[in-house]
């Protein structure tokens, strides 16, 4: 899942002994480096030596940025084959460097470096998005900044989390076991954190601040990921207890339940229009309630309207379908009762073929409901139809049409497709057809 397609990922995976936080820190460093590299001119590193130097210095907690700055503008090729002897001595950073070395540095530019990182980092869903961003950036060098540090951090956080999870997967299945492990990791995280802050105290305050912020964001994303990964892996329940949270089975179950609810709420948020700007459960529930109510009222209203316009209750549905206007829809509802009506209707419809060919475009593209409406209703304005067609799907053009109907319309379909009607002409013909139908 996490381990990516290319060698760098594996290499990074080999250094399992390094702690998560350190990896994360390394990445944060890399981001900073990225920030420096992002200015338009592509920058290269000179020789392995300086590069290695850079990392040993990084290891010692000294300011790496200055060095990188000084090294900008040099050209190199880093041979990935050198990695084994040269780079392993840098312990925890070996994996990182390797990853970046083979994918990023060989190709050279600072931007590629970027790409390398995200490649090692991205989990399946992100591949597309990240790649898309990168593609655009590749075509326009001016857009380099578009891969913002925030994005990078989030990706980094993601990966580190995934790694942590992968480690976990090997050793534990039981919840309790996970808890203890979680705590251990937490503990080591905290240690690392203190270490890091000490280290950074040497540096300028600014850097420290930045790093902390980034760390926070990455931590957040990893939190989010915990939920996501829970969805992805339904075979066992993965619960994380953070510090100060209860670990007994009841509260764990409760937490799982709550997370599920919030997940459902997320789906609802997507579903209900105007709900995605609202934060907070109460507001969202409000919005959902309003939406459901409005839908119910619409149903009420529409049934009232239908009752009002149809003086005889049965709606004259049969009449509807008997009229020439509805042949499309009749064949669409394969109701046994109406099957005999279809044929006469279709016969009646035949004389209208000329007109049908005019509206054939619409019929061909939109689904039968649309076509149905198109043929019948004169007061439709063009924007309205556009709206409708957008809300209907245009993918399965003809599948809704049953056998014989398709034959009838086959020619018109082609005609409609070949000659793309301009809007005005279309309305004109439509009106004509309506006129004819009313006659």
């Amino acid at each position, binding site marked *: 899942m996490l381990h990516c397609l290319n060698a760098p990922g594996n290499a990074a995976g080999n250094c399992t002994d390094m702690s998560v936080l350190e990896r994360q820190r390394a990445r944060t460093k890399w981001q900073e480096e990225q920030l420096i590299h992002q200015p338009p001119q592509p920058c290269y590193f000179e020789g392995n030596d300086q590069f290695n130097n850079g990392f040993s210095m990084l290891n010692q907690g000294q300011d790496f940025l200055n060095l990188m700055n000084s090294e900008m503008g040099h050209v190199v090729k880093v041979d990935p084959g050198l990695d084994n002897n040269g780079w392993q001595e840098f312990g925890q950073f070996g994996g990182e460097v390797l990853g970046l070395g083979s994918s990023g540095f060989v190709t050279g530019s600072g931007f590629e470096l970027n790409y390398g990182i995200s490649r090692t980092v991205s989990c399946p869903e992100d591949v597309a998005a990240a790649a898309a961003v990168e593609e655009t950036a590749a075509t326009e060098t001016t857009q380099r900044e578009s891969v913002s540090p925030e994005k990078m951090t989030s990706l980094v956080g993601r990966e580190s989390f995934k790694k942590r999870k992968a480690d976990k997967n090997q050793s534990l299945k039981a919840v309790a076991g996970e808890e203890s492990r979680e705590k251990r990791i937490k503990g080591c995280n905290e240690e690392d954190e203190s270490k890091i802050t000490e280290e950074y105290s040497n540096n300028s305050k600014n850097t420290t601040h930045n790093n902390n912020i980034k760390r926070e964001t990455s931590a957040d994303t990893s939190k989010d990921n915990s939920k996501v990964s829970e969805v992805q892996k339904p075979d066992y329940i993965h619960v994380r207890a953070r510090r100060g949270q209860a670990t007994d089975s009841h509260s764990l179950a409760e937490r799982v*339940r709550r997370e599920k609810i919030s997940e459902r709420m997320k789906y609802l948020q997507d579903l209900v229009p105007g709900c995605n700007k609202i934060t907070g459960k109460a507001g969202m529930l409000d919005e959902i309630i309003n939406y459901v109510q409005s839908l119910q009222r619409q149903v009420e209203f529409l049934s009232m309207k239908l009752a009002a316009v149809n003086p005889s209750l*049965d709606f004259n549905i049969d009449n509807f379908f008997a009229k020439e206007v509805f042949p499309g829809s009749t064949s669409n509802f394969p109701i046994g009762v109406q099957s005999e009506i279809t044929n006469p209707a279709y016969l009646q419809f035949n004389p209208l073929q000329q007109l049908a060919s005019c509206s054939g475009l619409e019929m061909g593209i939109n689904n039968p409901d649309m076509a149905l409406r198109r043929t019948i209703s004169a007061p439709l304005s063009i924007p309205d139809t556009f709206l409708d067609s957008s809300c209907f799907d245009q993918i399965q053009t003809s599948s809704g049409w049953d056998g014989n109907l398709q034959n009838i319309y086959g020619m018109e379909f082609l005609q409609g497709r070949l000659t793309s009607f301009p809007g005005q002409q279309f309305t004109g013909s439509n009106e004509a057809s309506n006129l004819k139908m009313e006659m």
Partner: protein
Amino acid sequence: MCNPSGNQLDNVSRRNSARMLKQEFLKKWIMGLQICSASKKEMSILERKKAIKLSADLAMASTKNGTTNWSLALISNASKENDNKTLVDQMLGNHHSEKISTKRPSIVSIFRNKRVATCRGKKILKKRGGIRRAKKMASSATSIAKRLVKKRTQVLKRLVPGGEYMDELNLMEETLDYILSLRAQVDVMRHFANATPKFES
């Protein structure tokens, strides 16, 4: 989920399924209307409206084939009234009503379980009451928020058919499904209503 093309496929299939839903709904609705019109000749406008709405609701519920609780609840609510019972039976067929009758006890049992669970929950709450109260004063904002959420959940439960018997998680799922179905229903009905006046004029 893994790749963009998969996502697209997902989208397409979802749209297709929405379309299928609409078609099936329309089919069933028209069938219901025919049954209605066959059973009663003279109707006032209100009666007509009621019949239309009822058949639309039933059609919507029957497209779900009894897989969701809200549709079952809707059908069983509708069949409570005697006049509607024949319509329901005719619309859904006999096997459907059997299904409902077999399913209904399960709903009831869910309801019972739910009750027990809430009782237990209250007990626990009571036990902790002393501690909670002290905290309540300090964090009244969270308790207010909780109360707001609870109130709205109650309202939502009233809106979704059969929602009274659902717990929160179930309610969310059912609401999702219900909204989707309602949307399809409204869409079809609107098209129908837009199509109609043209004929009468």
